[in-house]
């Protein structure tokens, strides 16, 4: 047994080391080395973790949607897709929660309020709740195929829902926070560190999803082997 546990391989270990290095750099640079932003002062430091969290959550939900589609498509149907969809959604919910928390702290120091009814914020909040519901449905029980089919359909319905929610809230409250990166607020080492953060979080995502997905596979296998044992027990009832 190795240090990263039974779900790790040489690849995930290398990935894990790279992730830790990236995150370490991000923490050191973001908290200590980064110069203050001209406009936002020290608060720009928050963006080094807030933006990657949000990016990661969107990436994760995108992967859930694609994997669900791949599961429902008859030619690519495989339980592997279902497990990837589920693992990705769980990681996505975690990082969307972090993005919302760090985002509202950032909002507090820059706008003076934790929350505004900005369209991106509102859509994000709805996305968050939608995927909490998705995870609840995955936990409903039934056979693995039932879980896979039900949750894949639900994930595709979420893909239908997101643009509609986004349309409606952006029509409702059109005001928008301009992208900090687009405005060219970050330069040189700051921009470099920002990208280090994006890459580190992306690697972290891959690492987490691989492990989560393997854990799910272990649990599914335990369910299946439990069936063999239960079958043997049940057949023993027959013996007089």
């Amino acid at each position, binding site marked *: *047994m190795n240090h*990263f*546990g*039974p*779900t790790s*391989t040489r690849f995930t270990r290398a990935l894990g080391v790279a992730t830790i290095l990236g*995150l370490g750099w991000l*923490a050191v640079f*973001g*908290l*200590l080395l980064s110069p*203050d932003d001209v406009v936002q*002062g*020290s*608060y720009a*430091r*928050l963006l080094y*973790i*807030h933006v990657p*969290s949000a990016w990661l959550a969107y990436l994760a939900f995108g992967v859930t949607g694609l994997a669900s589609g791949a599961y429902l498509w008859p030619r690519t149907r495989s339980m592997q897709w279902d497990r990837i969809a589920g693992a990705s959604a769980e990681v996505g919910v*975690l990082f969307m*929660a*972090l993005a919302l*928390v*760090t985002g509202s*702290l*950032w909002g*507090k*120091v820059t706008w003076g309020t934790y929350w505004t009814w900005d369209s991106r914020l509102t859509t994000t909040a709805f996305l968050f709740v939608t995927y909490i519901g998705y995870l609840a449905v995955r936990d409903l029980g039934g056979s693995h195929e039932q879980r896979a089919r039900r949750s894949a359909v639900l994930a595709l319905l979420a893909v239908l829902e997101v643009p509609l929610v986004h349309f409606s809230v952006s029509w409702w409250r059109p005001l928008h926070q301009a992208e900090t990166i687009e405005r060219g607020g970050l330069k040189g080492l700051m921009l470099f560190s920002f990208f280090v953060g994006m890459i580190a979080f992306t690697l*972290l995502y891959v690492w*987490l999803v691989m*492990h*989560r997905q*393997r*854990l799910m*596979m*272990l*649990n599914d*296998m*335990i369910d299946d*082997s439990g069936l063999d044992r239960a079958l043997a027990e049940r057949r023993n009832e027959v013996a007089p």
Partner: protein
Amino acid sequence: MIALRNAAHVVGSYAITFAAIAVYTWNLLRRARKAARQVPVEDRPWT
């Protein structure tokens, strides 16, 4: 270096983020260890 005013928000955000990642990761590995005891090594497709 960090300006003193509202430093708590900045440091707090980093703390929350890294703590959440650490807790989730730790929990994931712990559950994997537990589950792996019931599945023989040769049955795991990734090994």
